[in-house]
Protein backbone atom coordinates (compact mmCIF):
# COMPACT_ATOMS: atom_id res chain seq x y z
CA UNK A 1 0.00 0.00 0.00
CA UNK A 2 2.70 2.47 1.08
CA UNK A 3 4.98 1.32 -1.73
CA UNK A 4 2.08 1.59 -4.17
CA UNK A 5 1.53 5.29 -3.43
CA UNK A 6 5.28 6.03 -3.08
CA UNK A 7 6.17 4.49 -6.45
CA UNK A 8 3.38 6.49 -8.14
CA UNK A 9 4.83 9.69 -6.69
CA UNK A 10 8.37 8.73 -7.64
CA UNK A 11 7.47 7.81 -11.22
CA UNK A 12 5.86 11.22 -11.54
CA UNK A 13 9.20 12.86 -10.63
CA UNK A 14 11.45 10.72 -12.79
CA UNK A 15 13.99 13.41 -13.66
CA UNK A 16 14.63 14.61 -10.10
CA UNK A 17 14.68 11.02 -8.87
CA UNK A 18 17.22 10.08 -11.56
CA UNK A 19 19.53 12.92 -10.47
CA UNK A 20 19.35 11.72 -6.86
CA UNK A 21 20.03 8.15 -7.98
CA UNK A 22 23.12 9.37 -9.86
CA UNK A 23 24.31 11.13 -6.68
CA UNK A 24 24.07 7.97 -4.59
CA UNK A 25 25.57 5.93 -7.43
CA UNK A 26 28.64 8.19 -7.66
CA UNK A 27 29.12 8.15 -3.89
CA UNK A 28 28.99 4.36 -3.69
CA UNK A 29 31.08 3.84 -6.85
CA UNK A 30 33.82 6.23 -5.72
CA UNK A 31 33.83 4.67 -2.29
CA UNK A 32 34.38 1.20 -3.79
CA UNK A 33 36.99 2.37 -6.31
CA UNK A 34 38.97 4.71 -4.04
CA UNK A 35 38.92 2.40 -1.03
CA UNK A 36 39.85 -0.52 -3.31
CA UNK A 37 42.77 1.48 -4.66
CA UNK A 38 43.99 2.78 -1.28
CA UNK A 39 43.59 -0.51 0.52
CA UNK A 40 45.23 -2.27 -2.42
CA UNK A 41 48.16 0.15 -2.20
CA UNK A 42 48.41 -0.29 1.55
CA UNK A 43 48.40 -4.06 1.27
CA UNK A 44 50.89 -3.95 -1.58
CA UNK A 45 53.22 -1.67 0.42
CA UNK A 46 52.90 -3.78 3.55
CA UNK A 47 53.49 -7.00 1.65
CA UNK A 48 56.58 -5.58 -0.04
CA UNK A 49 57.91 -4.17 3.23
CA UNK A 50 57.11 -7.31 5.21
CA UNK A 51 58.76 -9.41 2.53
CA UNK A 52 61.84 -7.24 2.30
CA UNK A 53 62.49 -6.50 5.96
CA UNK A 54 62.77 -8.82 8.95
CA UNK A 55 59.52 -9.40 10.81
CA UNK A 56 61.40 -8.96 14.08
CA UNK A 57 64.91 -7.58 14.39
CA UNK A 58 67.01 -8.02 17.50
CA UNK A 59 69.70 -5.33 17.49
CA UNK A 60 72.67 -4.59 19.72
CA UNK A 61 70.86 -1.74 21.49
CA UNK A 62 68.89 -1.38 24.67
CA UNK A 63 65.75 0.69 24.97
CA UNK A 64 66.60 1.52 28.57
CA UNK A 65 70.29 2.25 29.15
CA UNK A 66 71.82 0.34 32.03
CA UNK A 67 71.52 2.27 35.30
CA UNK A 68 74.71 3.87 36.61
CA UNK A 69 76.09 2.17 39.76
CA UNK A 70 75.54 5.30 41.84
CA UNK A 71 71.85 5.35 40.89
CA UNK A 72 71.53 1.67 41.81
CA UNK A 73 73.27 2.31 45.13
CA UNK A 74 71.13 5.34 46.05
CA UNK A 75 67.79 4.76 44.32
CA UNK A 76 65.90 7.45 46.30
CA UNK A 77 68.52 10.16 45.95
CA UNK A 78 68.66 12.91 43.32
CA UNK A 79 71.75 11.99 41.34
CA UNK A 80 73.59 14.30 38.95
CA UNK A 81 76.34 12.71 36.87
CA UNK A 82 78.68 14.94 34.88
CA UNK A 83 81.38 14.10 32.34
CA UNK A 84 80.13 10.59 31.69
CA UNK A 85 82.29 8.87 29.07
CA UNK A 86 80.91 5.94 27.07
CA UNK A 87 82.94 2.74 27.03
CA UNK A 88 85.27 2.40 24.07
CA UNK A 89 84.16 -1.04 23.01
CA UNK A 90 83.04 -2.63 19.80
CA UNK A 91 79.32 -2.88 19.87
CA UNK A 92 77.60 -6.16 19.21
CA UNK A 93 75.17 -8.68 20.62
CA UNK A 94 76.95 -10.41 23.45
CA UNK A 95 76.47 -14.13 23.91
CA UNK A 96 74.57 -14.25 20.65
CA UNK A 97 75.01 -18.01 20.46
CA UNK A 98 72.91 -18.32 23.59
CA UNK A 99 70.19 -16.21 21.95
CA UNK A 100 70.39 -18.32 18.80
CA UNK A 101 70.03 -21.48 20.88
CA UNK A 102 66.95 -19.91 22.50
CA UNK A 103 65.49 -19.06 19.09
CA UNK A 104 66.05 -22.62 17.87
CA UNK A 105 63.66 -23.82 20.55
CA UNK A 106 60.88 -21.46 19.46
CA UNK A 107 58.38 -22.78 16.89
CA UNK A 108 57.06 -20.78 13.92
CA UNK A 109 60.18 -18.74 13.19
CA UNK A 110 63.42 -18.77 11.30
CA UNK A 111 66.37 -16.55 12.09
CA UNK A 112 69.60 -15.26 10.68
CA UNK A 113 72.41 -13.70 12.74
CA UNK A 114 73.96 -10.80 10.87
CA UNK A 115 76.98 -8.60 11.16
CA UNK A 116 76.29 -5.39 9.34
CA UNK A 117 78.02 -2.12 8.82
CA UNK A 118 78.72 0.67 6.40
CA UNK A 119 81.24 0.29 3.60
CA UNK A 120 82.35 1.91 0.35
CA UNK A 121 82.32 0.03 -2.91
CA UNK A 122 85.17 1.25 -5.08
CA UNK A 123 85.10 0.39 -8.77
CA UNK A 124 86.53 2.19 -11.76
CA UNK A 125 87.43 5.22 -9.67
CA UNK A 126 83.96 5.60 -8.23
CA UNK A 127 83.03 5.20 -4.59
CA UNK A 128 79.47 4.29 -3.58
CA UNK A 129 78.37 3.74 0.00
CA UNK A 130 76.45 0.62 0.98
CA UNK A 131 75.15 -1.17 4.02
CA UNK A 132 76.84 -4.52 3.86
CA UNK A 133 75.20 -7.46 5.60
CA UNK A 134 77.27 -10.44 6.58
CA UNK A 135 75.04 -13.51 6.54
CA UNK A 136 75.20 -17.27 6.79
CA UNK A 137 73.58 -18.18 3.44
CA UNK A 138 72.10 -21.42 4.87
CA UNK A 139 70.21 -19.47 7.52
CA UNK A 140 69.52 -16.36 5.43
CA UNK A 141 67.81 -18.47 2.75
CA UNK A 142 64.99 -19.25 5.18
CA UNK A 143 64.99 -16.01 7.13
CA UNK A 144 64.49 -13.57 4.22
CA UNK A 145 63.29 -13.51 0.65
CA UNK A 146 66.76 -12.75 -0.65
CA UNK A 147 66.98 -16.18 -2.28
CA UNK A 148 63.73 -15.48 -4.18
CA UNK A 149 64.84 -11.99 -5.18
CA UNK A 150 68.06 -13.20 -6.78
CA UNK A 151 68.04 -12.19 -10.45
CA UNK A 152 71.54 -13.42 -11.18
CA UNK A 153 73.58 -15.96 -9.22
CA UNK A 154 72.51 -17.80 -6.06
CA UNK A 155 72.75 -16.94 -2.39
CA UNK A 156 74.87 -20.08 -1.86
CA UNK A 157 77.58 -18.53 -4.04
CA UNK A 158 78.65 -16.74 -0.84
CA UNK A 159 79.72 -20.16 0.49
CA UNK A 160 81.47 -21.37 -2.63
CA UNK A 161 83.21 -18.21 -3.76
CA UNK A 162 85.82 -16.73 -1.48
CA UNK A 163 85.17 -12.97 -0.98
CA UNK A 164 81.85 -13.12 -2.87
CA UNK A 165 79.41 -10.21 -2.68
CA UNK A 166 75.77 -9.90 -3.72
CA UNK A 167 74.52 -6.45 -4.75
CA UNK A 168 71.13 -4.84 -5.21
CA UNK A 169 70.29 -4.25 -8.87
CA UNK A 170 70.13 -0.44 -8.52
CA UNK A 171 73.40 -0.38 -6.57
CA UNK A 172 75.18 -2.48 -9.20
CA UNK A 173 73.82 -0.26 -11.97
CA UNK A 174 74.87 2.88 -10.08
CA UNK A 175 78.53 1.86 -9.99
CA UNK A 176 78.51 -0.07 -13.25
CA UNK A 177 79.13 -3.55 -11.82
CA UNK A 178 78.00 -6.83 -13.27
CA UNK A 179 78.28 -10.52 -12.42
CA UNK A 180 81.90 -11.57 -12.04
CA UNK A 181 83.18 -8.00 -11.63
CA UNK A 182 85.84 -7.49 -9.01
CA UNK A 183 85.78 -4.46 -6.77
CA UNK A 184 87.32 -3.12 -3.59
CA UNK A 185 85.20 -2.88 -0.46
CA UNK A 186 86.47 -0.40 2.13
CA UNK A 187 85.16 -0.36 5.70
CA UNK A 188 85.11 2.66 8.07
CA UNK A 189 87.82 0.96 10.17
CA UNK A 190 90.14 1.02 7.17
CA UNK A 191 90.04 -2.63 6.08
CA UNK A 192 90.14 -3.01 2.29
CA UNK A 193 88.95 -6.26 0.79
CA UNK A 194 88.81 -7.24 -2.86
CA UNK A 195 85.49 -8.93 -3.58
CA UNK A 196 83.78 -10.51 -6.57
CA UNK A 197 80.14 -9.95 -7.58
CA UNK A 198 78.50 -13.40 -7.29
CA UNK A 199 74.85 -12.34 -7.38
CA UNK A 200 72.43 -9.51 -8.11
CA UNK A 201 69.03 -9.20 -6.46
CA UNK A 202 65.95 -7.07 -7.04
CA UNK A 203 63.49 -6.74 -4.15
CA UNK A 204 61.31 -4.03 -5.69
CA UNK A 205 62.00 -1.72 -2.75
CA UNK A 206 64.18 1.07 -4.09
CA UNK A 207 65.83 1.88 -0.76
CA UNK A 208 66.95 -1.75 -0.40
CA UNK A 209 68.02 -2.28 -4.00
CA UNK A 210 70.10 0.88 -4.20
CA UNK A 211 71.98 0.62 -0.92
CA UNK A 212 72.28 -2.99 0.23
CA UNK A 213 74.85 -5.68 -0.33
CA UNK A 214 75.40 -9.14 1.17
CA UNK A 215 78.56 -11.09 1.89
CA UNK A 216 79.58 -14.08 3.98
CA UNK A 217 79.32 -13.26 7.68
CA UNK A 218 82.95 -14.18 8.35
CA UNK A 219 84.18 -11.76 5.67
CA UNK A 220 82.07 -8.91 6.96
CA UNK A 221 83.24 -9.54 10.52
CA UNK A 222 86.81 -9.15 9.28
CA UNK A 223 85.88 -6.13 7.21
CA UNK A 224 84.17 -4.42 10.15
CA UNK A 225 86.74 -5.57 12.70
CA UNK A 226 84.04 -7.38 14.64
CA UNK A 227 85.46 -10.85 14.75
CA UNK A 228 82.93 -13.37 16.03
CA UNK A 229 80.48 -10.57 16.76
CA UNK A 230 77.09 -9.93 15.31
CA UNK A 231 75.01 -6.78 15.67
CA UNK A 232 71.56 -7.99 14.69
CA UNK A 233 69.46 -11.10 14.38
CA UNK A 234 66.76 -11.05 11.71
CA UNK A 235 63.73 -13.16 12.44
CA UNK A 236 61.05 -14.28 10.02
CA UNK A 237 57.72 -15.47 11.39
CA UNK A 238 55.12 -17.84 10.00
CA UNK A 239 52.46 -15.51 11.42
CA UNK A 240 53.56 -11.98 10.52
CA UNK A 241 50.78 -10.42 12.61
CA UNK A 242 52.22 -11.90 15.79
CA UNK A 243 55.44 -9.89 15.38
CA UNK A 244 54.70 -7.32 18.17
CA UNK A 245 54.01 -10.07 20.73
CA UNK A 246 57.08 -12.06 19.65
CA UNK A 247 59.25 -8.91 19.78
CA UNK A 248 58.02 -8.04 23.28
CA UNK A 249 58.65 -11.56 24.52
CA UNK A 250 62.17 -11.69 23.00
CA UNK A 251 63.08 -8.30 24.39
CA UNK A 252 61.88 -9.33 27.83
CA UNK A 253 63.91 -12.54 27.57
CA UNK A 254 67.21 -11.25 26.10
CA UNK A 255 67.02 -7.50 27.04
CA UNK A 256 68.26 -6.44 23.58
CA UNK A 257 65.93 -4.21 21.60
CA UNK A 258 63.59 -6.39 19.51
CA UNK A 259 61.67 -4.37 16.96
CA UNK A 260 58.66 -5.70 15.08
CA UNK A 261 58.00 -4.66 11.49
CA UNK A 262 54.91 -2.83 12.69
CA UNK A 263 57.04 -0.70 14.99
CA UNK A 264 59.70 -0.16 12.34
CA UNK A 265 57.16 1.15 9.81
CA UNK A 266 54.90 2.95 12.24
CA UNK A 267 55.37 6.24 10.41
CA UNK A 268 54.16 4.66 7.17
CA UNK A 269 51.07 3.27 8.91
CA UNK A 270 50.36 6.74 10.27
CA UNK A 271 50.53 7.99 6.70
CA UNK A 272 47.98 5.32 5.76
CA UNK A 273 45.67 6.64 8.48
CA UNK A 274 45.95 10.13 7.00
CA UNK A 275 45.26 8.75 3.52
CA UNK A 276 42.22 6.86 4.81
CA UNK A 277 41.01 10.02 6.51
CA UNK A 278 41.26 11.97 3.26
CA UNK A 279 39.50 9.19 1.34
CA UNK A 280 36.63 8.77 3.78
CA UNK A 281 36.16 12.54 4.00
CA UNK A 282 35.97 12.79 0.20
CA UNK A 283 33.49 9.93 -0.06
CA UNK A 284 31.44 11.28 2.84
CA UNK A 285 31.19 14.63 1.08
CA UNK A 286 29.98 12.91 -2.09
CA UNK A 287 27.38 10.97 -0.11
CA UNK A 288 26.42 14.12 1.78
CA UNK A 289 25.79 15.90 -1.51
CA UNK A 290 23.77 12.88 -2.67
CA UNK A 291 21.88 13.03 0.64
CA UNK A 292 21.08 16.69 0.05
CA UNK A 293 19.75 15.75 -3.38
CA UNK A 294 17.44 13.17 -1.85
CA UNK A 295 16.43 15.55 0.95
CA UNK A 296 15.63 18.13 -1.68
CA UNK A 297 13.49 15.81 -3.81
CA UNK A 298 11.56 14.38 -0.86
CA UNK A 299 11.21 17.76 0.75
CA UNK A 300 9.81 19.37 -2.40
CA UNK A 301 7.59 16.32 -2.89
CA UNK A 302 6.20 16.83 0.62
CA UNK A 303 5.52 20.50 -0.11
CA UNK A 304 3.83 19.63 -3.38
CA UNK A 305 1.75 16.93 -1.73
CA UNK A 306 0.38 18.88 1.23
CA UNK A 307 -3.17 18.39 0.00
CA UNK A 308 -2.58 14.70 -0.65
CA UNK A 309 -1.23 14.29 2.87
CA UNK A 310 -4.33 16.01 4.24
CA UNK A 311 -6.71 13.83 2.28
CA UNK A 312 -4.79 10.64 3.04
CA UNK A 313 -4.98 11.43 6.75
CA UNK A 314 -8.67 12.30 6.53
CA UNK A 315 -9.20 8.95 4.77
CA UNK A 316 -7.69 7.16 7.72
CA UNK A 317 -4.03 6.88 6.82
CA UNK A 318 -1.88 7.02 9.94
CA UNK A 319 1.19 9.16 10.61
CA UNK A 320 3.40 6.14 10.09
CA UNK A 321 1.70 5.50 6.72
CA UNK A 322 2.58 9.05 5.65
CA UNK A 323 6.16 8.68 6.93
CA UNK A 324 6.35 5.38 5.07
CA UNK A 325 5.18 6.87 1.77
CA UNK A 326 7.88 9.54 1.70
CA UNK A 327 10.58 7.48 3.43
CA UNK A 328 9.97 4.68 0.94
CA UNK A 329 10.75 7.05 -1.93
CA UNK A 330 14.14 7.88 -0.40
CA UNK A 331 14.88 4.22 0.21
CA UNK A 332 13.94 3.31 -3.37
CA UNK A 333 16.29 6.04 -4.65
CA UNK A 334 18.94 4.71 -2.27
CA UNK A 335 18.52 1.09 -3.38
CA UNK A 336 18.63 1.93 -7.09
CA UNK A 337 21.60 4.25 -6.44
CA UNK A 338 23.45 1.57 -4.49
CA UNK A 339 22.83 -1.09 -7.16
CA UNK A 340 23.99 1.28 -9.89
CA UNK A 341 26.92 2.31 -7.66
CA UNK A 342 27.98 -1.32 -7.24
CA UNK A 343 27.99 -1.85 -11.00
CA UNK A 344 29.75 1.44 -11.65
CA UNK A 345 32.23 0.76 -8.81
CA UNK A 346 33.08 -2.68 -10.21
CA UNK A 347 33.75 -1.14 -13.64
CA UNK A 348 35.87 1.64 -12.09
CA UNK A 349 37.92 -0.91 -10.14
CA UNK A 350 38.69 -2.85 -13.32
CA UNK A 351 39.53 0.34 -15.23
CA UNK A 352 41.93 1.43 -12.47
CA UNK A 353 43.43 -2.06 -12.31
CA UNK A 354 44.17 -1.94 -16.03
CA UNK A 355 46.02 1.40 -15.85
CA UNK A 356 49.76 0.94 -16.52
CA UNK A 357 52.07 3.18 -14.54
CA UNK A 358 55.55 4.19 -15.67
CA UNK A 359 56.88 5.73 -12.48
CA UNK A 360 60.29 7.21 -11.80
CA UNK A 361 62.68 4.47 -10.65
CA UNK A 362 63.34 6.40 -7.42
CA UNK A 363 59.85 5.77 -5.99
CA UNK A 364 60.06 3.91 -2.64
CA UNK A 365 58.31 0.76 -3.89
CA UNK A 366 58.11 -0.04 -7.59
CA UNK A 367 54.76 -0.94 -9.11
CA UNK A 368 53.47 -1.29 -12.65
CA UNK A 369 49.85 -0.33 -11.99
CA UNK A 370 47.33 0.34 -9.23
CA UNK A 371 47.22 -2.75 -7.02
CA UNK A 372 43.43 -2.95 -6.46
CA UNK A 373 41.91 -4.55 -3.39
CA UNK A 374 38.74 -6.44 -4.26
CA UNK A 375 36.44 -7.46 -1.46
CA UNK A 376 32.72 -7.96 -1.10
CA UNK A 377 32.98 -6.00 2.16
CA UNK A 378 33.81 -2.83 0.26
CA UNK A 379 30.54 -3.26 -1.64
CA UNK A 380 28.67 -3.98 1.60
CA UNK A 381 30.19 -0.92 3.31
CA UNK A 382 29.52 1.31 0.28
CA UNK A 383 25.95 -0.01 0.05
CA UNK A 384 25.27 0.52 3.74
CA UNK A 385 26.67 4.06 3.61
CA UNK A 386 24.65 4.89 0.48
CA UNK A 387 21.44 3.47 1.93
CA UNK A 388 21.92 5.15 5.29
CA UNK A 389 22.52 8.55 3.74
CA UNK A 390 19.44 8.11 1.51
CA UNK A 391 17.28 6.91 4.40
CA UNK A 392 18.40 9.71 6.70
CA UNK A 393 17.88 12.34 4.00
CA UNK A 394 14.35 11.03 3.36
CA UNK A 395 13.44 10.54 7.01
CA UNK A 396 13.59 14.24 7.94
CA UNK A 397 11.02 15.53 5.39
CA UNK A 398 8.95 12.34 5.83
CA UNK A 399 8.61 13.06 9.56
CA UNK A 400 7.66 16.62 8.76
CA UNK A 401 4.98 15.37 6.36
CA UNK A 402 3.53 13.04 8.98
CA UNK A 403 3.22 15.86 11.53
CA UNK A 404 1.21 18.08 9.21
CA UNK A 405 -2.26 18.75 10.55
CA UNK A 406 -4.88 18.02 7.89
CA UNK A 407 -7.22 20.74 9.13
CA UNK A 408 -4.54 23.41 8.62
CA UNK A 409 -4.02 22.24 5.05
CA UNK A 410 -7.72 21.91 4.25
CA UNK A 411 -8.47 25.34 5.69
CA UNK A 412 -5.51 26.78 3.74
CA UNK A 413 -6.72 25.14 0.54
CA UNK A 414 -10.27 26.39 1.08
CA UNK A 415 -9.21 29.93 1.95
Amino acid sequence: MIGYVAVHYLVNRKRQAAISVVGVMLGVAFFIAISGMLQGMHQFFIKRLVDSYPHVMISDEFREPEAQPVVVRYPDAVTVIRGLKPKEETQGVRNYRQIVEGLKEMPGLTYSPITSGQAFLRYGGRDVSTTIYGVDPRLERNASKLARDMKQGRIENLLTTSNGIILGRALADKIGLDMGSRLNVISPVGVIMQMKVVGIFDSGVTQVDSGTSYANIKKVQVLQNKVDKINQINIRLDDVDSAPQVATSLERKFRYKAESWQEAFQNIFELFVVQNGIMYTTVSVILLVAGFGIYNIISSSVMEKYRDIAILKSMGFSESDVVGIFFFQGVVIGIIGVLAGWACGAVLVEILASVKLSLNKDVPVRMDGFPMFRSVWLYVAGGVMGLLSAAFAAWIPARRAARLHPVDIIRGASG
Partner: protein
Amino acid sequence: MSNVITLNNVTRILQSEEIPVTLVNDASLTVKSGEFLAVRGTSGSGKSSLLYLMGLLDKPTSGHINIAGIDVATATEKVRQETRLEKIGFVFQFHFLLQEFSALDNVMLPMRRLGRLSDKDMRARAEKLLVSLGLEGKTNKKPGQMSGGERQRVAIARALANEPMVILADEPTGNLDSKNTAAVIDIFKKLAHETGVAVVAVTHDPDFATKTDRNIVMKDGKIVEG
Protein backbone atom coordinates in the same frame (compact mmCIF):
# COMPACT_ATOMS: atom_id res chain seq x y z
CA MET B 1 -32.96 5.13 12.55
CA SER B 2 -30.00 4.69 14.86
CA ASN B 3 -27.72 7.42 16.12
CA VAL B 4 -24.54 7.65 14.06
CA ILE B 5 -22.88 10.65 15.67
CA THR B 6 -23.73 12.23 18.99
CA LEU B 7 -22.06 15.42 20.21
CA ASN B 8 -22.51 16.38 23.85
CA ASN B 9 -21.46 19.86 24.94
CA VAL B 10 -18.53 19.94 22.57
CA THR B 11 -16.30 22.99 22.78
CA ARG B 12 -13.20 23.72 20.76
CA ILE B 13 -11.00 26.60 21.82
CA LEU B 14 -8.02 27.48 19.66
CA GLN B 15 -5.11 28.58 21.82
CA SER B 16 -3.65 31.26 19.64
CA GLU B 17 -0.68 33.38 20.74
CA GLU B 18 -2.75 36.45 21.51
CA ILE B 19 -6.19 35.49 22.76
CA PRO B 20 -7.95 32.13 22.80
CA VAL B 21 -10.49 31.78 19.98
CA THR B 22 -13.63 29.72 20.57
CA LEU B 23 -14.35 27.87 17.33
CA VAL B 24 -17.21 25.71 18.64
CA ASN B 25 -19.05 26.57 21.80
CA ASP B 26 -20.96 23.95 23.77
CA ALA B 27 -22.43 22.20 20.73
CA SER B 28 -24.77 19.22 21.19
CA LEU B 29 -26.13 17.37 18.21
CA THR B 30 -27.32 13.94 17.12
CA VAL B 31 -27.07 12.68 13.55
CA LYS B 32 -29.11 9.60 12.65
CA SER B 33 -28.48 7.08 9.91
CA GLY B 34 -30.17 7.92 6.62
CA GLU B 35 -30.38 11.58 7.56
CA PHE B 36 -29.33 14.33 5.16
CA LEU B 37 -28.33 17.29 7.29
CA ALA B 38 -27.14 20.76 6.33
CA VAL B 39 -25.02 22.91 8.60
CA ARG B 40 -25.42 26.56 7.73
CA GLY B 41 -24.03 29.78 9.03
CA THR B 42 -22.01 32.79 8.06
CA SER B 43 -18.32 32.61 7.38
CA GLY B 44 -16.45 32.06 10.66
CA SER B 45 -19.52 30.78 12.48
CA GLY B 46 -17.77 27.49 13.26
CA LYS B 47 -19.57 25.14 10.90
CA SER B 48 -16.42 23.70 9.29
CA SER B 49 -14.79 23.39 12.72
CA LEU B 50 -17.81 21.41 13.87
CA LEU B 51 -17.48 19.15 10.84
CA TYR B 52 -13.75 18.53 11.49
CA LEU B 53 -14.57 17.64 15.10
CA MET B 54 -17.26 15.20 13.92
CA GLY B 55 -14.77 13.76 11.40
CA LEU B 56 -12.04 13.33 14.05
CA LEU B 57 -9.66 15.62 12.20
CA ASP B 58 -9.59 17.82 15.29
CA LYS B 59 -9.98 17.18 19.02
CA PRO B 60 -12.47 19.04 21.21
CA THR B 61 -11.23 21.06 24.17
CA SER B 62 -14.14 19.63 26.17
CA GLY B 63 -17.25 17.52 25.65
CA HIS B 64 -17.90 14.11 24.15
CA ILE B 65 -18.20 12.83 20.61
CA ASN B 66 -19.73 9.42 20.18
CA ILE B 67 -19.49 7.60 16.87
CA ALA B 68 -21.17 4.18 16.62
CA GLY B 69 -21.04 3.75 20.38
CA ILE B 70 -17.38 4.78 20.84
CA ASP B 71 -16.38 7.95 22.67
CA VAL B 72 -13.84 9.08 20.10
CA ALA B 73 -13.05 12.45 21.71
CA THR B 74 -10.85 10.78 24.28
CA ALA B 75 -9.84 7.71 22.23
CA THR B 76 -6.26 6.99 21.16
CA GLU B 77 -5.02 8.28 17.82
CA LYS B 78 -5.07 4.73 16.47
CA VAL B 79 -8.79 4.30 17.31
CA ARG B 80 -9.58 7.70 15.81
CA GLN B 81 -7.61 6.84 12.66
CA GLU B 82 -9.36 3.48 12.29
CA THR B 83 -12.74 5.11 12.87
CA ARG B 84 -12.00 7.63 10.11
CA LEU B 85 -10.96 4.79 7.81
CA GLU B 86 -13.96 2.56 8.41
CA LYS B 87 -16.86 4.76 9.41
CA ILE B 88 -16.37 8.23 7.93
CA GLY B 89 -16.10 9.52 4.38
CA PHE B 90 -15.00 13.06 3.58
CA VAL B 91 -15.89 15.28 0.66
CA PHE B 92 -14.28 18.73 0.50
CA GLN B 93 -14.88 21.86 -1.52
CA PHE B 94 -11.76 20.99 -3.50
CA HIS B 95 -11.81 17.44 -4.72
CA PHE B 96 -8.33 16.63 -3.28
CA LEU B 97 -7.90 13.74 -5.68
CA LEU B 98 -4.36 12.37 -6.01
CA GLN B 99 -3.22 13.67 -9.39
CA GLU B 100 -0.95 10.72 -10.19
CA PHE B 101 -3.76 8.19 -9.82
CA SER B 102 -6.67 7.39 -12.11
CA ALA B 103 -10.27 7.83 -10.91
CA LEU B 104 -10.41 4.10 -10.23
CA ASP B 105 -7.15 4.11 -8.24
CA ASN B 106 -8.29 7.13 -6.22
CA VAL B 107 -11.46 5.30 -5.23
CA MET B 108 -9.51 2.15 -4.44
CA LEU B 109 -7.07 3.94 -2.10
CA PRO B 110 -9.18 3.77 1.10
CA MET B 111 -10.03 0.13 0.30
CA ARG B 112 -6.36 -0.68 -0.13
CA ARG B 113 -5.59 0.94 3.22
CA LEU B 114 -8.38 -1.03 4.91
CA GLY B 115 -7.15 -4.19 3.21
CA ARG B 116 -10.28 -6.27 3.58
CA LEU B 117 -10.97 -6.96 -0.09
CA SER B 118 -8.96 -8.67 -2.78
CA ASP B 119 -7.62 -6.50 -5.57
CA LYS B 120 -10.27 -7.88 -7.90
CA ASP B 121 -13.10 -7.13 -5.48
CA MET B 122 -11.75 -3.65 -4.77
CA ARG B 123 -11.61 -2.92 -8.48
CA ALA B 124 -15.16 -4.22 -9.00
CA ARG B 125 -16.51 -2.15 -6.10
CA ALA B 126 -14.70 1.02 -7.24
CA GLU B 127 -16.01 0.57 -10.79
CA LYS B 128 -19.54 0.03 -9.50
CA LEU B 129 -19.36 3.18 -7.39
CA LEU B 130 -18.04 5.27 -10.27
CA VAL B 131 -20.68 3.95 -12.66
CA SER B 132 -23.43 4.58 -10.09
CA LEU B 133 -22.28 8.21 -9.96
CA GLY B 134 -22.46 8.54 -13.73
CA LEU B 135 -18.76 8.14 -14.43
CA GLU B 136 -18.85 5.14 -16.76
CA GLY B 137 -16.00 5.40 -19.28
CA LYS B 138 -14.06 7.74 -17.01
CA THR B 139 -12.60 5.20 -14.63
CA ASN B 140 -9.13 5.28 -16.10
CA LYS B 141 -8.98 9.03 -16.51
CA LYS B 142 -6.70 11.03 -14.25
CA PRO B 143 -8.11 14.05 -12.36
CA GLY B 144 -6.44 16.44 -14.81
CA GLN B 145 -8.49 14.91 -17.65
CA MET B 146 -11.86 15.40 -15.93
CA SER B 147 -14.27 18.30 -15.39
CA GLY B 148 -14.90 19.85 -11.97
CA GLY B 149 -18.21 18.04 -11.56
CA GLU B 150 -16.68 14.72 -12.52
CA ARG B 151 -13.81 15.17 -10.07
CA GLN B 152 -16.25 15.94 -7.26
CA ARG B 153 -18.22 12.80 -8.09
CA VAL B 154 -14.98 10.77 -7.98
CA ALA B 155 -14.33 12.34 -4.55
CA ILE B 156 -17.81 11.22 -3.44
CA ALA B 157 -17.12 7.71 -4.74
CA ARG B 158 -13.85 7.69 -2.80
CA ALA B 159 -15.68 8.81 0.36
CA LEU B 160 -18.06 5.85 -0.10
CA ALA B 161 -15.30 3.32 -0.79
CA ASN B 162 -15.27 1.68 2.65
CA GLU B 163 -19.07 1.83 3.10
CA PRO B 164 -18.94 4.51 5.82
CA MET B 165 -21.75 5.28 8.27
CA VAL B 166 -21.49 8.97 7.59
CA ILE B 167 -20.39 11.29 4.81
CA LEU B 168 -19.05 14.63 6.00
CA ALA B 169 -19.05 17.21 3.23
CA ASP B 170 -17.44 20.63 3.59
CA GLU B 171 -18.91 23.02 1.01
CA PRO B 172 -19.13 20.16 -1.52
CA THR B 173 -20.75 22.33 -4.18
CA GLY B 174 -18.71 25.47 -3.51
CA ASN B 175 -16.76 25.13 -6.74
CA LEU B 176 -19.49 23.69 -8.97
CA ASP B 177 -21.90 25.24 -11.43
CA SER B 178 -25.65 24.98 -10.83
CA LYS B 179 -26.07 21.82 -12.91
CA ASN B 180 -23.33 19.95 -11.09
CA THR B 181 -24.51 21.35 -7.75
CA ALA B 182 -27.95 19.89 -8.37
CA ALA B 183 -26.40 16.57 -9.37
CA VAL B 184 -24.25 16.38 -6.20
CA ILE B 185 -27.20 17.28 -3.94
CA ASP B 186 -29.23 14.60 -5.68
CA ILE B 187 -26.47 12.04 -5.09
CA PHE B 188 -26.30 12.86 -1.39
CA LYS B 189 -30.06 12.68 -1.02
CA LYS B 190 -30.22 9.28 -2.69
CA LEU B 191 -27.32 8.03 -0.62
CA ALA B 192 -28.99 9.02 2.61
CA HIS B 193 -32.44 7.80 1.73
CA GLU B 194 -31.58 4.65 -0.21
CA THR B 195 -28.45 3.35 1.54
CA GLY B 196 -28.94 4.70 5.04
CA VAL B 197 -25.67 6.62 5.09
CA ALA B 198 -25.91 9.80 7.13
CA VAL B 199 -24.81 12.89 5.19
CA VAL B 200 -23.74 16.05 6.96
CA ALA B 201 -22.97 18.90 4.60
CA VAL B 202 -21.64 22.32 5.49
CA THR B 203 -22.97 24.88 3.01
CA HIS B 204 -23.40 28.57 2.34
CA ASP B 205 -25.94 27.86 -0.36
CA PRO B 206 -29.54 28.54 0.80
CA ASP B 207 -30.91 26.40 -2.08
CA PHE B 208 -28.80 23.45 -0.92
CA ALA B 209 -30.31 23.80 2.56
CA THR B 210 -33.87 23.60 1.21
CA LYS B 211 -33.17 20.13 -0.17
CA THR B 212 -31.91 18.51 3.03
CA ASP B 213 -33.95 16.71 5.70
CA ARG B 214 -32.80 19.02 8.47
CA ASN B 215 -30.85 22.22 8.87
CA ILE B 216 -28.84 23.46 11.75
CA VAL B 217 -27.59 27.00 11.89
CA MET B 218 -24.43 28.12 13.67
CA LYS B 219 -23.47 31.54 14.91
CA ASP B 220 -20.30 32.42 16.80
CA GLY B 221 -19.55 28.75 17.38
CA LYS B 222 -22.94 27.94 18.84
CA ILE B 223 -25.76 25.93 17.31
CA VAL B 224 -28.54 28.48 17.32
CA GLU B 225 -31.13 26.65 15.28
CA GLY B 226 -32.04 23.06 14.50
